[in-house]
């Protein structure tokens, strides 16, 4: 069943390789070219965007891990079957996510390194940087899965260096723009899957939480803090009639938090979709010999970071 995700994984790897070339293009645009600063900014921004993508995938690994644990609890407490085969399906998806997170992290690191090298202007420096990147590409875990992919990337790299030496900067920028748009399309395509994984997680967690409230498996005392904390007092764990009276409030809070979790994820996915689109727009401006309008990373990335942090904290 490990082949289930092979097609999208290849698509992802293809896009990340494409954007790796994109970053190379952005960095080497600086070879005797007035766009050097813009190219460095583009590489740095793409590094930040790739880091956000890695965090996004890592958060989904956490969500799938939590979902796995909920299914195990469901089987133990509610006799909902969780077969070894189904668990393997979930684990396969989790493995694929981890692979994607690693890919994006590797790419972010590489983009950051080349952003730092973009000040080089001599052709010899360009060649040396290309050689260094070839070494880095060889070290990428994901790329080592396919020798043909490595060869394709190396070939593209040589083509790119040749183009830079011939000062075809605008052609390279246009190619970079196309790659960025391809990355955006990938995010949009995968958005439905991530939305589904998140929604199923929150729903099955909600169903189990409601069961636990109904069966004395939840401490509702947190609901009483608002009344007692102003007076320096802490609530005792409710029992009997008090606990029963608080149960509807606990269920209401579960429903409210479920909706909030779904909304928060939707905002993060939207931001993760818009960030590469914004990068594409900026790079397009560079390809048209116009100055890059903004030098900071896409502002939407903070929304992704906030959500990823929230997912990690929810697991504590």
């Amino acid at each position: 069943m490990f082949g289930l995700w092979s097609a999208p994984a290849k698509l992802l790897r293809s896009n990340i390789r494409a954007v790796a070339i994109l970053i190379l293009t952005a960095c080497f645009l600086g070879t005797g070219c007035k766009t050097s600063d813009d190219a460095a900014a583009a590489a740095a921004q793409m590094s930040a965007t790739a880091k956000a993508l890695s965090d996004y995938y890592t958060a989904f690994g956490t969500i799938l891990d939590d979902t796995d644990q909920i299914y195990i609890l469901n089987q133990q407490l509610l006799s909902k079957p969780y077969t070894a085969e189904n668990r393997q399906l979930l684990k396969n998806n989790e493995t694929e996510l981890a692979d994607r997170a690693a890919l994006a992290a590797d790419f972010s690191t590489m983009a950051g390194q080349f952003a730092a090298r973009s000040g080089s202007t001599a052709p010899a420096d360009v060649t040396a940087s290309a050689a260094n990147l070839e070494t880095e590409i060889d070290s990428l875990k994901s790329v080592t899965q396919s020798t043909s992919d490595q060869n394709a990337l190396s070939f593209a790299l040589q083509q790119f260096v040749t183009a830079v030496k011939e000062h075809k900067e605008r052609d390279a920028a246009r190619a970079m723009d196309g790659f960025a748009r391809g990355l955006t399309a990938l995010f949009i395509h995968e958005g439905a899957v991530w939305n589904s994984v998140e929604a199923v997680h929150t729903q099955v967690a909600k169903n189990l939480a409601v069961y636990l409230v109904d069966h004395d498996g939840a401490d509702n005392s947190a609901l009483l803090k608002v009344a007692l904390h102003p007076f320096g007092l802490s609530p005792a764990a409710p029992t009997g009639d008090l606990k029963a009276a608080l149960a509807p409030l606990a269920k209401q809070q579960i429903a409210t938090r479920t909706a909030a979790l779904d909304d928060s994820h939707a905002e993060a996915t939207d931001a993760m979709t818009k960030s590469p689109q914004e990068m594409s727009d900026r790079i397009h401006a560079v390809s048209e010999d116009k100055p890059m309008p903004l030098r900071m990373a896409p502002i939407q990335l903070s929304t992704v970071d906030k959500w990823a942090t929230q997912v990690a904290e929810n697991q504590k």
Partner: protein
Amino acid sequence: MPDVLSTVQATFLSIDSQYNLLRAVCTTQQQRDDLGNQYAEAQEAYLACIGKMLRDDDPEISALSMQLKAANAKIAQAVSGMGNMNKVIDDITTAVALGAALVGKIA
């Protein structure tokens, strides 16, 4: 365009949310086993569907998807029909089978 993933997801979540109530009114071990098997199959269809990254532009898939949506509507009313558990389990079985067929089409 019908969304295969959302319909398979709806089947699984519908059974998951009603499982406790339905299992409580099962009168025979066979009914409980049948309900559990359908739950596992709905979960499998959903997890496999996620793994296959959907393609729902096939007309045959669209037709199956519409049938599954209709079957899901019956599952949504399952609690009100708990007096006839055999009928409820039949409805769930129909939906789960359609979901499995749908996922198979996008393999």
